[in-house]
């Protein structure tokens, strides 16, 4: 699901993959986690669970992008978040549960 495009003479790569999340608080967490060097753009779509990331492959690898998201507590197609990080999430963000309580910020 990857495709590359040339931007400003510098190769930026666009990724689009599935990430588990349930609320706008999760969305903010994922996008904030990706505010690091090498990432041009990160946009999570809560409706379909797709995360779009544009990154510079000279700085980061695709694997590392997944790792950043998993480290924030959200499962990606490739890497599952550790239970420790997952358990630390706000109750309303516990996407692995069937019943999610009170999704307020």
């Amino acid at each position, binding site marked *: 699901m990857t495709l590359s495009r040339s931007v400003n003479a510098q190769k930026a790569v666009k990724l689009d993959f599935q990430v588990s999340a349930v*609320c706008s608080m999760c969305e903010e967490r994922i996008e904030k986690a990706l505010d690091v060097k090498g990432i*041009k753009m990160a946009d999570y779509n809560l409706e*379909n669970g797709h995360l779009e990331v544009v990154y510079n492959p000279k700085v980061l690898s695709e694997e590392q992008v997944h790792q950043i998201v998993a480290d924030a507590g959200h499962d990606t197609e490739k890497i599952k978040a550790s239970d420790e990080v997952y358990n630390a999430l706000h109750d309303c963000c516990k996407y692995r549960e069937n019943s*999610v309580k*009170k999704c307020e910020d």
Partner: protein
Amino acid sequence: MRRLILCLLLSGGIAHFSFSQVIKGTVSGSAPGNKTETLIGAAVYWQGTQLGTVTDENGKYSINVPPAATMIVFSYVGFTNDTIAYKNQTEINVVLKAFEMGEAEVIAERDATELSLMNPLNTQIITEKELAKAACCNLSESFETNASVDASYTDAVTGTAQIRMLGLDGKYTQMMADVVPQIRGLAVIYGLSAIPGPWINSIQVGKGVGSVTNGFESITGQINVSMKNPENAESVYINAYGNQGGRMELNGSFLVPVNKAWSTLLQAHSEMNNTRQDMNGDGFMDNPLKRDLIFRNAWKYQSQVTGFQGEYQVTGTLVENTSGQLDYRNSENAGNANLWGMHLTDQNLNAYAKTGYVFKNSIGKSIGTQFSANHQELNANYGLRDYSGLHQSFRANLLYASKIGATTDHTFLTGLSFQYDDYSENLDSLSFIRTERVPGAFFEYTWKHDERFTMIAGIRVDDHNLFDVFISPRLHARYSITENTSIKLAAGKGYRTSNILMEHVGILASSRVIDVNGQQSGLMPNLNPEKAWNFGLNLTKKFQMNYRDASVLIDLYRTEFTDQVIIDMETAGAVSFYNLNGQSYSNSAQIEFNWTPIRRVDVRLSYRWLEVRNQFNSGILDKPMISRHRVFSNFAWESKETAKKAKWKFDVTPQWIGSSRIPSTSANPEEYRLSNRSDDFVLVHAQLTRVFNSAFEMYLGGENLGNFRQANPIISAENPFNSYFDASLVWGPVFGRMVYAGLRFKIPAPVK
């Protein structure tokens, strides 16, 4: 603007299918200072479908899961919608947050200025984040980072700020606080500085005629100031400010929960300037000496049980300003010709009550009432001129909102209003006395055809006791060409009656002889009410550039007066007010570009062109002191937030203002003449903020960093009692560079 029904609600006939899966849960609501209560009759539905239900008397619901379920929406009148992704949950409990009555959006973490593709009215929302960029101090200074509103000074002596939209004075823009018309009558200029910035939650700047529901007075725009109210204020908010000119301000705001349904907010503001300063060496103080006190108490009532909600507030203002020659002391020098000085006291008491009732069994139906009353007393002297003014007003507005048919595609808002204004002003031997009683009725129909097209058509009829019947038709339409491009059209008529002295208070800081329709003393004749048509076209396009959000806006507006009060300063030493006899118009074009080139960096570039001309006795001329060209830019940067929520914020606003026409001074002796055109100039404001944590931040900033000053803003400053004295021909900054610093301390409201 004031809409009691906002949310998309479901009507009775909901399709029944059989689904195997069911989600159950409770919907409750919370308002700051109130306990969370369950919401009865809240709508729960699948996004983009007609499938839904409402909560029962215990706030519980149960909803079937359709095959392609993705997002589930929870909504209730007066609360923000919550949308939750469906991930096979079997139970979802939500707590909706209350928002301000009559307002479509809640201001939380969001962009500093928002452009809406969906709202048929061309409205920009200036959020608290944007307001924080212009750290000083009150409403008149809150538009520094906005390209659509111009700020200027009335004269070179009194330090009074005024605003303009579409090249026309602020008096043609209807000002509202919490959608109740305010800052009108004698307060059109001084009233702007009586709303402290830290009390403002957000400002909605609407270009063009606006809605009919708040009266006939808007022509170039409607600016609504959403005040901090019990439902959105912090528990404690303290702001202190000081600048190089000696101005000091202290603002405090305290939230007091009373019981389940009631909460109240107490606010106090004090401003002080005791420093006499003359940086440009003209012998006059650069900034007025000032003392003011403002108190505000706002109450909010909201009951889930009865369906009633209400907002009530009272504000008291006491202002004392002194300015003029450096050693002027009002107690010693008032009324004599030793030193020229200005002294003003402004006392104002204002209250409003808004009560709404939402019919629980009939979704989309509501009734609202608005009552407001205002008492203002002004006493001033400007040199040897002696002024006193009294304005008492009362306004009632009754609104009824409902829908036509089963869906909310066709809705209407209708009502009756009554406006009472009693004016009494005296300036030496001139007096202006007028009582206005204006009953009116309005009807506004909204058609939401689909996602792409919305139209608002409104009309109001007002029967003015002194003038004829005012008929104000207004139309707004929005069409989305694509998902990210919308085009908006607006056309409509507005009216206003004028109070020439307080609307042009700058001329009192001159020796110009005032005449109204040729009359120079006694009871002054009523001038015709001002009438104008306004037409607007807006194109908004949002797109991505280098993977980052960008937007372009193009605005074209024309205002055409059929009646207007002309202020004619074309003869030195005189100012004449008379009814327009000929044409008067303003054409305005603006292009604005917003982009985030790098993360956490926002860029705004704008260019605005204006042509404002009218017929004077001496011919058709450009309106004086209004520059044709303005280039505006704003660059804002924010550092990444640390775990402790600390960050840096920096923003800089450079702008270029083109030259403008100065009224002729050729009849004066040579030493008292000015050139016919002003210089163009550059203004740069910048500010740095350090956020230490969510409770505490400090800022340091500078205004007019390039230290540009209008040369000789006062004609005959050395001899202010001769007939050539004139401080009203101001087109640029009178004060040079101004450094300021301040702090903000806040304790957020408890979540529940």
